[in-house]
């Protein structure tokens, strides 16, 4: 990796964190009406997986993958507008947070139903394959979502057809309050891959290098016609499940342990050891990401709320007039 790329990666980690922090702050101020699901602490997963994707690849983010939106190219202003329920959000106010994707950048908006995007990702990958397009689909899901039937059906089909899809499991050890030991009886969810006839990999989701390496391999495999990979990234969310959740089901010690593995700081340490001028990189980056998020917020605040009757728009691509 050259310096430019290493610094760019740092920029993305920081931008996501800045954006997440701002959204959390807005939520505290009562400016966000829907739920806010912070991905703070998991930035290395989305950056590591998405950074080297191509414009025509598709991502299917999970509910706290705001980072995937940003890295894959979604406009920060529109993303912020979406979170505030404004007309310039991708959903034009129809739904909140990450339920409206940005198709022009290959970003799918999930439903709330966990795991339900995996069949959709697999269908997209099926098209990429039979049309011999050199494209991949990335399906993110939590270890909690892994218990849903849809995940099973999707993986099984992907295995049969060796589809160019990477299943990225962000294992952050909790589904809301429910710890892994009540969710499954295995250490690594990725161990399920072999039951579908493809590869499972486990990596540290807080280590950008590790994620990039594993994701790179998986994406390479997908493009090469070698089929899907189940890539499990062990990570941790710092905030509660949503901003309303005080997360008393976990210990201070556990949180601090994970904070000491912070993906952003870890990258800073790395940059420092590369002998870059980390102090000035930090300052510059801070300014840069603040400005982006400030601008995004300004844009979002300036965007109008939708008007009532717009609720009836966008239901049908070819509406039938009832007569």
């Amino acid at each position, binding site marked *: 990796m050259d310096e430019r790329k290493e610094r760019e990666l740092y920029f993305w980690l920081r931008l996501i964190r800045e954006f997440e922090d701002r959204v959390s702050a807005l939520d505290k101020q009562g400016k966000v009406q829907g739920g806010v699901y912070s991905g703070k602490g998991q930035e290395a997963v989305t950056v590591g997986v998405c950074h080297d994707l191509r414009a025509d690849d598709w991502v299917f983010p999970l509910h706290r993958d705001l980072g995937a939106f940003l890295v894959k190219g979604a406009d920060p202003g529109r993303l912020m507008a979406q979170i505030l329920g404004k007309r310039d959000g*991708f*959903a034009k106010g129809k739904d909140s947070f990450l339920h409206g994707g940005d198709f022009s950048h290959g970003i*799918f908006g999930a439903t709330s139903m966990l795991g339900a995007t995996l069949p959709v990702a697999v269908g997209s990958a099926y*098209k990429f394959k*039979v049309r011999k397009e050199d494209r991949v689909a990335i399906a993110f899901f939590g270890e909690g979502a892994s218990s849903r039937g849809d995940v099973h059906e999707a993986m099984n089909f992907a295995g049969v057809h060796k589809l160019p899809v990477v299943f990225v499991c962000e294992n952050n050890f909790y589904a809301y309050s429910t710890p892994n030991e009540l969710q499954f009886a295995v250490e690594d969810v990725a161990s399920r891959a072999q039951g579908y006839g493809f590869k499972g990999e486990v990596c540290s989701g807080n280590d950008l290098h590790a994620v990039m390496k594993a994701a790179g391999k998986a994406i390479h495999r997908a493009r090469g016609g070698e089929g899907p990979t189940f890539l499990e990234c062990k990570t941790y969310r710092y905030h509660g499940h949503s901003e309303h959740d005080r997360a008393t089901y976990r210990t201070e010690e556990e949180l601090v342990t994970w904070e000491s593995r912070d993906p952003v700081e870890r990258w800073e340490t790395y940059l420092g050891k590369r002998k870059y001028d980390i102090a000035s990189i930090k300052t510059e980056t801070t300014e840069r990401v603040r400005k982006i998020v400030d601008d995004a917020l300004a844009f979002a605040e300036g965007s109008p709320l939708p008007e009532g009757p717009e609720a009836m728009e966008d239901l049908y*691509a*070819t509406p*039938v007039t009832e007569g």
Partner: protein
Amino acid sequence: MLVTYIQAINQAMHEEMARDDNVFLLGEDVGVLGGAFKATDGMLARFGNERVVDTPISESLIVGAGVGMSIQGMRPILEMQFIDFISCGFDQIVNMAATLRYRHGGQTACPIVVRGPCGGGVHGGLYHSQNPEAWFFHVPGLKVVAPATAYDAKGLLKSAIRDDDPVIYLEHKFLYRRIKEDIPESEFVVPIGKAALRKEGRDLTVIAYGSPVHAVMKAAKDMAKEVDIEVIDLRTLLPLDWKTIRASVGKTGKVLIVHEARRTGGIGGEIAARIAEELFESLDGPVMRVAARDTHNAFSAPLEEYILPNQEKITEAIRKLASY
């Protein structure tokens, strides 16, 4: 050209797949077997196994993957081996497909067709006889069609495949081989959203769709001396062709709705309510309904007979309504 209802369905898919190579077919046993009822006969041989996909038994995957293909520009036809199994792909239909365009603020279409054999009368029992239209009728973003003739079966399926929105296409298995019809050799489609006036009449309107249309037509004919019946075949259930209904009710002032789905919560309730709401002044009697009794579609012949609507029950209701 003389075809059965199921041949019409088969032709529609053949023609559309030949016309547009973005049309795909996914389902259980749709390939080698040509479908449990032979609806997809000959398609694997003609279009190959990339476009005609024998899937694992995974209805949720079938619908979800269909959505995934659709956002990449494909137009998948998704077969449920029996429409009853749509319950296993329910979430993908009502929450994924039906909301796709809406939650993306109009950025995308969702041109999928979910089709499969519905309906009773063949001793299929609880899980091979269902009429699930009411569930989907309550879901904006979907379109629902239910042809009663071979002509409509073909024309509506072609329209459904070309339509940019998710369409639930309900083919009635009782009709598969029981009706044979002369349909044009040349290309035709039947537009979604338009009912068919099957018979004109002055005294009373019967609104039906799917298999019962035939019993209604027979009743109308048999009763011709008693009462002059107008018959509307809805064809599209969502959205309703309100214009055709309105015109007919304005003329006759009396309405009977007939469907094979259960009465309580069936779409007849909505239609009746809306007629009463908007055309109250035109009505000379209550809007009446003939529908399946409020139970599951039981297997044994006497039970099924008791449950389902038939010409006798229709005739009786018509008499009662006519006497208002």
